């Protein structure tokens, strides 16, 4: 056995700094958020694809279906329909991001490195919070690209910068809520492959049965009610209000107060999904 240079570990190992649970949680979350963002930067295929889908949607709905829907729906011009459409496209991008979040979580949970994280004296919930934070950061360029695309096809905000920024803030809040939906689905998914199968059948009807393309008044009675109460509608209409884009005002309180409804829905989704996700995560593979 060599008298190796491996010095007495007891002397070399630094002692961990002390700190409250809360401080540890934030610092662990920051470290892991950085890890997740590094992943996104070093394997950018997935984030870039995630960007491409809403762009295609904008072009598809704005131009291919725009003329038909404008004639049938708002009774306005295709340009007006695109103004009506854009906030829905922003929200749709936030909604479909659930798939990326859930897929990321499901993949992570399967990795061997999870075993190391779990055997370390860190806050387990920081792993989930970091996923949420990193995906929120990823939403910034996504929203920016969509806004740029909207401006190119003639959409604009009409109520000033401050209200437009508030609208972006609202989109981010909604995305934050969606990250927790994604995290919950990710920890519930039996394996990463089924995530897409779970997410898309959930997201598609939610998107269509909302004010995204059609005002509820033009839907059959039952579907119209569902669309009116759909949280997606609340967020889309709140974004329309803040951006100053046209919207079709309904005759119920919910339809008339999209902003408080959007905030309440987002808050409720977070309060419901985050604790469930953390609980499920702690019990995973025990």
């Amino acid at each position, binding site marked *: *056995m*060599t008298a*190796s*240079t*491996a010095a*007495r*570990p*007891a002397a*070399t*190992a*630094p002692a*961990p*700094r*002390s*700190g409250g649970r809360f401080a*540890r949680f934030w*610092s*662990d979350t920051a*470290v*892991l958020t950085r*890890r997740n963002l*590094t*992943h996104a930067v*070093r*394997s950018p295929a997935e984030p870039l694809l995630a960007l491409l889908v809403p762009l295609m949607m904008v072009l598809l709905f704005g131009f291919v279906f725009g003329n038909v829907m404008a004639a049938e729906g708002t009774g306005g011009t295709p340009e007006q329909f695109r103004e009506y459409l854009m906030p829905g496209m922003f929200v749709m991008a936030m909604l479909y991001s659930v798939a990326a979040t859930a897929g990321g979580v499901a993949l992570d949970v399967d990795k*061997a*490195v*999870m*075993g*190391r*994280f*779990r*055997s*370390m*004296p*860190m806050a387990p919930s920081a792993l989930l919070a970091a996923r949420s934070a990193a995906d929120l950061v990823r939403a910034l360029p996504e929203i920016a690209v969509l806004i740029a695309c909207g401006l190119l096809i003639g959409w604009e905000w009409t109520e000033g910068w401050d209200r437009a920024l508030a609208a972006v803030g609202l989109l981010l809040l909604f995305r934050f809520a969606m990250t927790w939906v994604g995290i919950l689905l990710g920890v519930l998914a039996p394996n990463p492959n089924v995530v897409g199968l779970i997410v898309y059948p959930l997201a598609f009807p939610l998107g269509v049965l909302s004010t995204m393309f059609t005002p509820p008044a033009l839907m059959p009675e039952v579907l119209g009610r569902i669309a009116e109460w759909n949280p997606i509608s609340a967020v889309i209409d709140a974004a329309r209000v803040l951006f100053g884009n046209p919207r079709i005002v309904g005759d119920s309180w919910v339809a008339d107060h999209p902003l408080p409804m959007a905030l309440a829905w987002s808050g409720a989704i977070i309060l419901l999904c985050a604790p469930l996700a953390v609980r499920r995560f702690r019990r995973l*593979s*025990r």
Partner: protein
Amino acid sequence: MGTTPDLAVSAEGLVKSYGATRALDHLDLAVPAGTVMGLLGPNGAGKTTAVEILATLRRADAGRAVVAGHDAAREPERVRERIGLTGQYAAVDEILTGRENLVMFARLSGLGAATARRRADDLLERFDLTAAAGRPAGRYSGGMRRRLDLAASLTLDPAVLFLDEPTTGLDPRSRNGVWRAVRDLVGAGTTVLLTTQYLEEADRLADRMAVIDSGRVIAEGTAEQLKSTVGGDRVDVVVEEAADLEPAAAVLARVCGTAPRTDPEERRVSAPVAAADRIAALTGVVRGLDAAGLRATDIGVRRPTLDDVFLGLTGRTGADREGAARPAAPAPAPAGQGAAA
């Protein structure tokens, strides 16, 4: 705490089932502080499950595990502060570089940014990874990844280190490096619980070992104690012609004064011999064979190895299954072939 204070790891009656599979069936284990315990057992014996329960990754269905003075089920956070784990599969982030991995784990262990960087550099140096520090861990060779994994589990100088098959898939040089690192740690006072398929590894590193099968400990002790359970030294003769087996057995019986066993498949005859008589017996056998005109391809005195222990203890079910295929083999399993089959 209710446990002997100088036990670094103690498990009492651990039970764990995965659905219908009972992975651990009342497993008991006691590892004195500052020693190395080897956990041996065939595939599926429950080694990984035991390690995962002790390292707080899983909860036992029943029983109690105390690690570094804390109950693994009730105070997992305290346990995690005192342990390091190198699992069966390298648990590093494949996209991050080696250095980024170690810095991240150090930060998550509660070190400040500057201290974490320094610690990472120390560990890279110590495990000979400095040159590869800037490459993504996913592009490391298996051995480098294992070393990085081991380095990561030493971030805080754990009081108790769990190593689940730490050298599987390593070349002899890397294996020696891991062994040296483990000995250094033990020299500095760390307690190590090590699972392995390599009996040589257990023989070299472990002070005591436990053989587990079907989720329970079936033998426990030092290597010498375990070897003595399968008997003492033996004289082995391998003959060239199968027809020579019987006459060779007669020679062995006469010289050693014990009943020889014959293994027709290997054309081997072997007879127990007292330790004091080993060389005299060997000489006698050589002369006897010569006088009888028998040609041997191999003659030797064999001490029992841990392979014999392992196969003797755990081979029963395996032998039963094999029994159907080759019914004519009453002999002890051939040694020196390892447990893997």
